[in-house]
């Protein structure tokens, strides 16, 4: 039996038929074509499916789609601004060589959006903890941390101005 899910996805109101058995990751990938949302474990252990729900990073594989009713969802597809420019976090990932196979990348970027959006600065150790819900086998997290740290620092310098996220 299908249900209608009404929510906001990447800034746009969406009404979509969902099977109540499906995860939010299923809905975003299969019904809305947002394939940045990756599946690496389907049990909340790898973080590849991370999206923001009302501004909070969650594993969308263990979040039922029907719970998103009325909520605001953000995925990597929603980060570029209207001119098509990369979000500063995306740019930092490109420039810091934080991307390798790219499978964990969209999820970590979404956690970084929440981290940067908090408006706080963090120590390196705090950043390690904040991205510890993501597994990556390619990078040793080194350049990912560099990218997140840079994005946080850049945003911090421009407090008061809105970021694309």
């Amino acid at each position, binding site marked *: 039996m299908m249900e209608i899910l009404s929510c906001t996805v990447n800034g746009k109101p969406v009404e979509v038929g969902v099977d109540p058995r499906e995860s939010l990751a299923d809905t975003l990938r299969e019904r809305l074509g947002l394939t940045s949302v990756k599946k690496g474990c389907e049990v909340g252990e790898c973080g590849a499916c991370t999206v923001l729900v009302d501004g909070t990073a969650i594993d969308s594989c*263990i979040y039922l789609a*029907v719970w998103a009713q009325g909520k605001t969802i953000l995925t990597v597809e929603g980060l570029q601004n209207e001119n098509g420019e990369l979000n500063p976090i995306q740019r930092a990932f490109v420039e810091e060589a934080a991307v390798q196979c790219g499978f964990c990348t969209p999820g970590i970027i979404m956690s970084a959006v929440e981290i940067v959006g908090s408006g706080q600065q963090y120590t390196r150790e705090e950043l390690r903890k904040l991205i510890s819900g993501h597994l990556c086998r390619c990078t040793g997290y080194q350049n990912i941390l560099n990218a997140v740290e840079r994005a946080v620092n850049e945003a911090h310098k421009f407090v008061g101005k809105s970021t694309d996220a």
Partner: protein
Amino acid sequence: MYDIASIYQAVSVADAIRALEADPSALVIAGGTDVLIKIREGKLAGCRLVSIHELGEELSGVTQAPNGDIEIGPLTTFRGVTFSKIIRGNIPVLGEATDQAGGPQLRAAGTIGGNVCNGITSADSASTLMALDAVLRVRGPRGEREVPISQWYKGVGKVDLAPYELLVKIVIPRDNYEGYAGHYIKYAQRSAMDIATLGVSCLVKLSGDKKVVEDAALAFGVAGPVPMRATSAEAAVRGLPVEQAVTAIGKAALEDVNPRTSWRASKEFRIQLVEELSGRALAEAARRGGAAI
């Protein structure tokens, strides 16, 4: 896609209880971080669910009652507990414990109520709630009852909760936290995204000169089939100078625990951890309480 027969999305606590009474084999799903995984594993495949996920207004949040008791809504996420000003100001040890569950995304979705109701010995909040002698307020069709946490655990994965009941509050009585300092050690193989090999939570109340242990509460996760208090260790250190207590508590705790060998860790290894980490937990708790140690 989860193999779920049906899901009922409750609109209120009363509605959830009605739904559970109508279908006693239905399972409650809150944050989903536990139940959905078991469905996928096949353990709960084909189940009927009553979702309380959206009952945040009734079931989420941390408040302080006029008598000073701290009341935690069970739908409060791990993160919600950790960042609660009330918890930080009064029972920081509990916030530290919930801050060590899984990773950030899990802590944003998983709830303290789920952590208590799944009855798992490794639950990160459980040993601290044991040390705090928390009281669990449960509501059913015929009203509420309160269960001291010492009576809550009935066996592996089993708690004192009827199929038609919901946990509605976790209460920390004022006397159980006021004047105590605490420390929780999650010992696991990884520093994140892990389950505890051993969880140790220690609360301590020091004498006015901060030199003597007036009272101590020591609780473990994974030292037995369910979270447990180490009552003989507590008795052994009451009245001892802090440094002596730190030295004595580990050995004394061995009287209380009954860890088993599993593929995750041997009994002997867990015993070594119990002995070593009890002292470390007490030392740090005492330090936070003002002891010069």
